[in-house]
């Protein structure tokens, strides 16, 4: 075996081991040690890390900033909810439908990205997020239990609205948490396959320079839309998972500013790495839970923390925490070890 493939395989093996270990902890350790409200929170962490993953693909890989990712999550949630009420399809089909339709919508949202970039693209996608919020709240999201478009005569938010169904064998919260983790792991794997093969290399080239990518034979239109398709698909599936988690989704759950918070936490976690997306999910969902339910603090303070964290990342650690933390640990270790090594030498010079 050549040194190259040996090296590559070692790196892959280490990462795969860490990933499998994390997954095992998430599936078998956490459900036994964490209480019911923690499990609900961890379900949200998994879902929002997929949303951060989508943001990371668009911005970290291709360099297109989209502030409409939570809007796509909302759309996936809405589609999942409506199909759950309108049909009796098995749950995995609901996931695929939500993913597929959100994917088409996401590609349409991505069309301006072929012409615009930077601030303009950010503004357009943010406006899309705002429009989605308005549209869904005007239409009584999710509007009850009456076919695909029908509205419940009693109103959307009455207790008579039955919850969106879960898979028959994952109805309880813990079982549904496990189901969510597995689906999210599959979505992460899908993204990983993309970024480590031909599309990932083409995206990295586009990010470096569009003229260089064209000169390299990359069809920029195709690969940009492909990135939007992938990011929207995973986000749509996550939205459907969210629908069945909360049971009766409400418009108030989804605010335009969530798209901004998500972008901030994704940047803090690290947009160049798949691991950064998991960290972003933790920041986005676990911290508010800790603040509010555990520590009794106002979760709005988090916005300040996120703001400060974002500033820190943008100024000093563009790779985010997932990149910076190991570096900090390594320099800490070097500091400690060099301290140890210096001690005997210092004594030696005294003699």
């Amino acid at each position, binding site marked *: 075996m050549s*040194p*190259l493939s040996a*090296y*590559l395989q070692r790196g892959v093996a280490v990462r795969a081991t860490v990933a499998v270990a994390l997954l095992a902890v998430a599936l078998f350790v956490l459900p036994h040690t964490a209480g019911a409200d923690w499990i609900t929170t961890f379900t949200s962490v998994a879902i929002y890390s997929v949303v951060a993953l989508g943001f990371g693909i668009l911005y970290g890989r291709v360099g297109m900033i989209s502030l409409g990712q939570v809007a796509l999550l909302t759309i996936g949630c809405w589609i999942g909810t409506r199909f759950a009420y309108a049909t009796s399809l098995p749950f995995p089909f609901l996931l695929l439908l939500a993913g597929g339709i959100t994917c088409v919508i996401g590609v349409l949202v991505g069309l301006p990205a072929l012409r615009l970039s930077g601030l303009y693209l950010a503004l357009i996608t943010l406006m899309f997020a705002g429009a989605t919020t308005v549209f869904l709240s005007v239409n009584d999201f999710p509007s009850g239990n009456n076919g695909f478009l029908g509205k419940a005569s009693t109103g959307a938010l009455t207790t008579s609205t039955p919850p969106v169904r879960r898979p028959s064998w994952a109805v309880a919260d813990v079982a549904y948490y496990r189901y969510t983790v597995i689906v999210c792991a599959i979505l992460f794997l899908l993204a990983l396959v993309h970024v480590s093969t*031909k599309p990932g*290399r*083409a995206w*990295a*080239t586009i*990010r*470096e*320079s569009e*003229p*260089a990518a*064209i*000169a*390299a*034979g*990359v*069809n*920029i239109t195709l690969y940009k839309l492909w990135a939007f398709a992938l990011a929207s698909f995973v986000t749509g599936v996550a939205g459907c998972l969210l629908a069945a988690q909360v049971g009766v989704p409400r418009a108030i759950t989804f605010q335009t500013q969530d798209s901004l918070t998500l972008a901030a936490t994704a940047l803090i976690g690290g947009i*160049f790495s798949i691991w950064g997306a998991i960290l972003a999910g933790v920041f986005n969902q676990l911290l508010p839970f800790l603040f509010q339910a555990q520590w009794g603090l106002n979760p709005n303070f988090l916005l300040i923390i996120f703001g400060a964290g974002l500033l820190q990342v943008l100024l000093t650690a563009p790779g985010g925490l997932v990149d910076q933390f190991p570096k900090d640990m390594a320099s800490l270790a070097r500091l400690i070890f060099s301290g140890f090594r210096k001690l005997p030498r210092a004594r030696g010079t005294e003699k």
Partner: protein
Amino acid sequence: MIEVTALTVRFAGVTPIDDVSVVFPGGTCGLIGPNGAGKTTFFNVLSGFVRPAAGTVTAFGENLLKMADYRRARWGLRRTFQTEMAVEQLSIFDNVAMIHEHSGAKRSARRDDVLSAIEFVGLNANPSSKVGRLGARERRLVEVARAVVGRPRVVLLDEPAAGLPDEETGHLSAVIKQIPERYGALVILVDHDMALVSACCETTAVLDFGKLIASGPTAEVLRNEHVIRAYLGTEEEL
């Protein structure tokens, strides 16, 4: 062979290429001229980034200007840029492999082709190390490896030696000289380093303010009084 006839490019107020007709017969051809002469603009026309106002470019009997820009790589057009543009996020191997991926060359040959291109340019670095960690010299070599992989037909090099110290230019010159024979591609070399151009190029064309002022065997062209005056002229202005 590349035949350029009556090529004219106009931007608002400037005509960086003005009615140029020239033939690049094959091998390694030089394209020189003072700053702002239109050399990079000519490359941009070949790449499809700039639409000429008039004129034709025929490469190996095919109308290059009719092809969509990104399809020209698949046809066999390769180029480097005046500012270095290897992809920092990717490894050396992936930088070269991604060109191969879009070149239409056989997938089964990718590994060998990529590694042999890296070897051809004399890059002594671990192919799996990220380009972001390399120095200027190594990045230039990565770019040249990108330009020769996957059956190139025309290789455009825009000031590949800019900023390199003399001894490294010597190595680069030896690599460039071998491209036509090893890969069967026509090379057009733009550079301000006349030693490099005369070492590599059998023929050379000279642009000045968008006009072709000379073309032919390199030694003759460099003795041409118009060429000398064009260069001295700009030196006086400097």
